[in-house]
Every structure is written in C-alpha cells, then in structure tokens.
C-alpha cells in the first residue's frame, strides 16, 4: 500500500536558471507525483508562467542570470499561490519583505524540497 504523496497531481512551477539544478528539481517533483510547470530559466518566462498557468505552488531561484525573481514571487502572492525560494543567499542578504519567506538553502537534498513545498500547500485530504 503506497501512501499518496501530498504533492500528487499538484501543479508546481519551477524557475531556476541552472539547467542541472532545474532538472534535479523536476525529477524530485515528478518522483513525488507532482506535475512540473516549466522548468524555465529566465525572469520573463517565469513571469509569463506565473500569470498564465494554473498553479498550486512554486519553487523560485532568487538569482536568475543576474536578475532577481522577486517580481515573480509578488505576482504569485497576488494570485494566492504559495512559493518557496531556492537560494544560496542567506536570509539577511534578501530584501526585508522576503526575509520571512520559505527558503530552501542550496545545496539542497531532493526530499527537503519536497517537504518544504508540501508544507506550503494546504492539506485538503481526509484524515
């Protein structure tokens, strides 16, 4: 009997500019039965998907080839889509409004990401 993954069939946006990291995230999410939206590497693509797609949560790399992903986070918050930062920056290095955000530190282990995203999504399942 397999317990159903909390991320099963959830649509998770992945924005990460490093190919290998993006693919690792994709694999980890797919292994947890999530549906990966993306992954995409740029701010522009990320903004586009954040507005056009149906989403349950998002993982955002803070630094996207020199651009910051904060705008994507703001758009997602406006749509009530929970998100987590994946970053090598410490909290103090982030602008004040984002310091209390959910942050997964690089380098990461796949199950930590899954747990962090699982925590973002409200549990609607039966006990």
């Amino acid at each position, binding site marked *: 009997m397999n317990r159903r993954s909390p991320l099963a069939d959830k649509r998770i946006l992945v924005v990460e*500019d*490093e*190919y*290998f*990291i993006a693919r690792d995230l994709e694999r980890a999410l797919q292994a947890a039965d999530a549906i990966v939206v993306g992954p995409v*590497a740029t701010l522009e693509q990320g903004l586009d998907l954040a507005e056009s797609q149906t989403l349950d949560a998002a993982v955002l790399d803070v630094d996207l080839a020199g651009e910051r992903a904060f705008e994507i986070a703001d758009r997602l918050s406006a749509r009530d889509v929970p998100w987590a930062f994946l970053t*090598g920056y410490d909290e103090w*290095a982030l602008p004040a409004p984002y310091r209390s955000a959910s942050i997964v530190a*690089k380098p990461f282990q796949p199950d930590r990401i899954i747990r962090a995203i699982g925590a973002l999504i409200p549990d609607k399942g039966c006990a």
Partner: protein
Amino acid sequence: MTELTSLQGQTPLSAPPLGPLPHDSHVLAGINRILQEALRASTEEELGQLCLAVAEDLTGAAFSFFGERGGSDDRLDHIAISERGWAAYTGNDPHFVKRELPGGMKIHGIFGQVILQDRSMIVNDPANHPDRVGTPDGHPALRNFLGVPLRRDGETFAMFALGNHPTGFTERERAIAEELAPAIVQALLRKRAEVASRASQRRLLSLIEGIPQLVWTATQGGHWTWASPQWVEMTGLSVEQSLGHGWLAAVHPDDRDAARRFWEGAGERGNLAMEGRLRHVQTGRYRWFKTRATPVRDDHGTIVEWFGTSTDIDALRRLRERQETLVAELQHRVRNILTIIRSIFTRTVDSGGPIDEIADHFRGRLDSLARTQLVATQSRSGRVDLENLIRDELLGVGAIEDDRLSIQGPDVSLPADTAETMGLAIHELTTNALKYGALRHPAGRLSIAWAIELKSNSKCELIVKWDETGVPAMPVPPVRHGFGTELIREALPYGLGARTRLEFRGGGVLCVITIPWIADDAAPLNRSTEG
C-alpha cells in the same frame, strides 16, 4: 636693619615719616589710568610703557624700566623700557637701536638689590654704591635711582625702577611708586589672564572648527542654539536657519521621525547617538552621519545644554554595504557551484559503467569546472577568454596544435556562467574525440572555429563550430545518450538560450553551438552573409 643702614646713601625701608600723603588726586588718577588702559594695550610691552609713563609723570623721573624674574629666577627679563628711556639711549648696539628689550639679565648691581633684598630702595649717589656694576654703553649716566619690588601672593616676581630725578628721589617719590606698585601688578596679571583666556578660546574654537565633525549645541528637546561653520558648509543652512528646530530641514525626510525621537528620553539618558542622512548642499545627495550628543551639566548635575557632533560615515556605510554584497555573492556562488557539482555527480554515477570510468569522468568534469572558475575569478571582469578555454581543455588531455588540429577565431570573452557550461561542453567533446574520434585516429582532423555574426534583426550571435573529419565510422556513437549529449542538446539551450546542433556523421562529430551575443564595442563583428 644693621646691614641695611650700612648701605650708603640709602633710606631704610622702615624709615618714617612718609611725608606728604601719596593718596592725592594725581596718584589716584594715575592708578585709574593704569587699570583702565591696561586691557586696551595690545602687548605687555605697551602696558609696561603706560605704567612707566604714569610713574615718570608722577615722580619726575627722567627714564625707567620694568622687569620680571625669568624662569631661572636669578635672571631678569625686561617687560618694558619707557619711551623716555629709549629716547635717552645714545649708543649704537644694534639691539638697543632696534628697541629690542634685553632679556636674561643677571640680577645684580644696584637694581638687583631691589629683588635680592625684596624692598624698595632709593640710591641718590649710585657712583659710590658698593654694588655698583656700571651701565651699558649708551645708557644715560645714572645720577639717582628709585627701585620698587612688585609682589604677587606676597612674593617678589618683578620690579620697576626710575632714574635721574632732577634733584634726587625722596620719600615722597618712593611713596608714590609704592602706591602705584599694586595697580601695576594687577594690570599686568589681568592683561595676562585676558591674553591666556583669549588664546584658550581661540584654541578651542580652532579645534571645534578644525575637526571634521559638524558641531552644534542645543537645549533640551533638540532646540539648537549654535552650529559650527562645518555644519553651514555641509548643509548650506545658515546658523540662523538652523537654530531651534531649523536643522531638521537638512535631515532626510525618512530620518526626521528618528531625529525627533532621538531627543525623547534625553532627560534620563546621558549620551545620545543615532545614524541618519543629511543633505549635502553641493551635490544634493544625502550622506550618512553618526550623530552623538553629550549633556553639559551645571554644578548641581542638572543638564543645561547638549553638545553635539555629527560624523560623516557615508563612505564607511557604503563600504559595509559593499562588503555585505560581496559576502552574499560569494556565499551564493559557492553554494550554487556545490549544487551543480552534486547534480553532475549524480548524473555521472547514474550513467553507469565500471567505477574507475565513473571516477575518471567525474574528475574530468570537476577539473573542467575548476579551470573555468579559476580563470573567471582571476580576471577583474569575471570573464573568460574563449580561445584559452578551448586550448586549456585540449592541452589538458595532451592534444597538440599541428596540421591535424586547428583552433581559430577572434578574441571573445565569455561571461562566467556561459564559460562554465561552454567549458563543460568543450570538455565532453574533447573526451569523446580522444576516446572515439579525431584525437584518437591518426587520420582524424579537428577544426574548432568561431565568429560573432550580426543578424538581420541587428542582434548578434556567437557561433562555435567543432568539426571532426577523417574518423572511421563507429557502429554506436557512445556520446549520444550520455551526459555530454544532454549538456549540449539541453543544458546549453536551457540556460543560455543557445541553439545547438550535434551530429555523429561518418568521419566524426559535428557540433555547432549558436549563442545569443550581446555585442560590446571591442568584439570584432562578421556580417552574416544571409543578412
């Protein structure tokens, strides 16, 4: 008294009576003159000359001097020689001609007795006086002498002496001179105190105005009462404009609340400190200042005013911010590269094979990343030269440039992130060529060429072409499903927006990587023939 009476021609100090009372209106007028004009004198010498002129006028002496014990106590320094004294000088000693006051005179002779015996003295027959030492060349002949000691706290520290009364000095002149003595002492000391106080004020002021801080004073609640020239220069607000709460006009609007709060609770706390921005009038820019205020208390410990300084810490703050940025960037880069290495490791292991081979592959990829990192961090711009990137990779595996290997292209420097992936791609192509391709077979040739082309839409592209020929056809091209293939076909397009072409043809590998290129003026351009 016996030794005193033995001095010839001299009236003992204690000798009564004093004759006509010196407290006549002339003497009082003289004392008034000394005390009133003393502070107006610009120098001690001028003050001394005034005192001597009064003494000469009242006693009828022809000339006089005013001297003080020097630092070593056994020497006398002149404070002044009277105007009549200078006029009577007939010698040609250049110092006296220039009216330079003699200093460090030995305390001896007739005048010396006034100090040594600590009493006033009349000598009406100086030529026969036992202590006589004579007068300097050019000094008028001394016919008679009246010397009076000057005392401070009961101690003789100075004297003045009068010379050549037409008929000789009497007790009357002595009484007048003794009456003047305390006034002269008071005038001199008052003058000195005033000069010292002015010098100390000047020192304090030049200290306050010379330090790099902006200085001000305020009463309770931050009500300014004074501002230093530095404040006026920095903010462009005049002292009048800054008084009261006028100074707030120079404070950054966002810091004004904090500046007002700064003064709350100033009653209990001793010292106040805050950081805030002040507008620099010349540049219109706000600069960060650290402001401190220290209370000035009266004898009962009550705070009467506040003494404040504002120190420019703008450069320090910017340095601190820059340092924080650098540390954050460094952390970010280190953690990012570790994440990438972790990912590459997983992939290398996942592709399977004997452990030695996995280790070799991983080592090769790690070395490639390390080389690019090294070059990128060594250059100031953080960019990496493409030709060096390619040469380092090929040199690393022992390939030599001969007629079978050609590397050609203009100077192109890649941003660090592009160089990282490109370096890995070149590494994978090289490893493959060494194992199966042009670098393994004697008949194989490898040409690596690149160019920057201007497209018709005025955007530029960097095109790198890896072209192997003369390689015998392989049944199953091994790179096709591995890490290298994924890197070239997927990673390059993903992160860098590149278009890539990777073909395993008969004769060897053909790989063309086309990367969108932001042209800088230094990069040479080849106009696309399609344009």
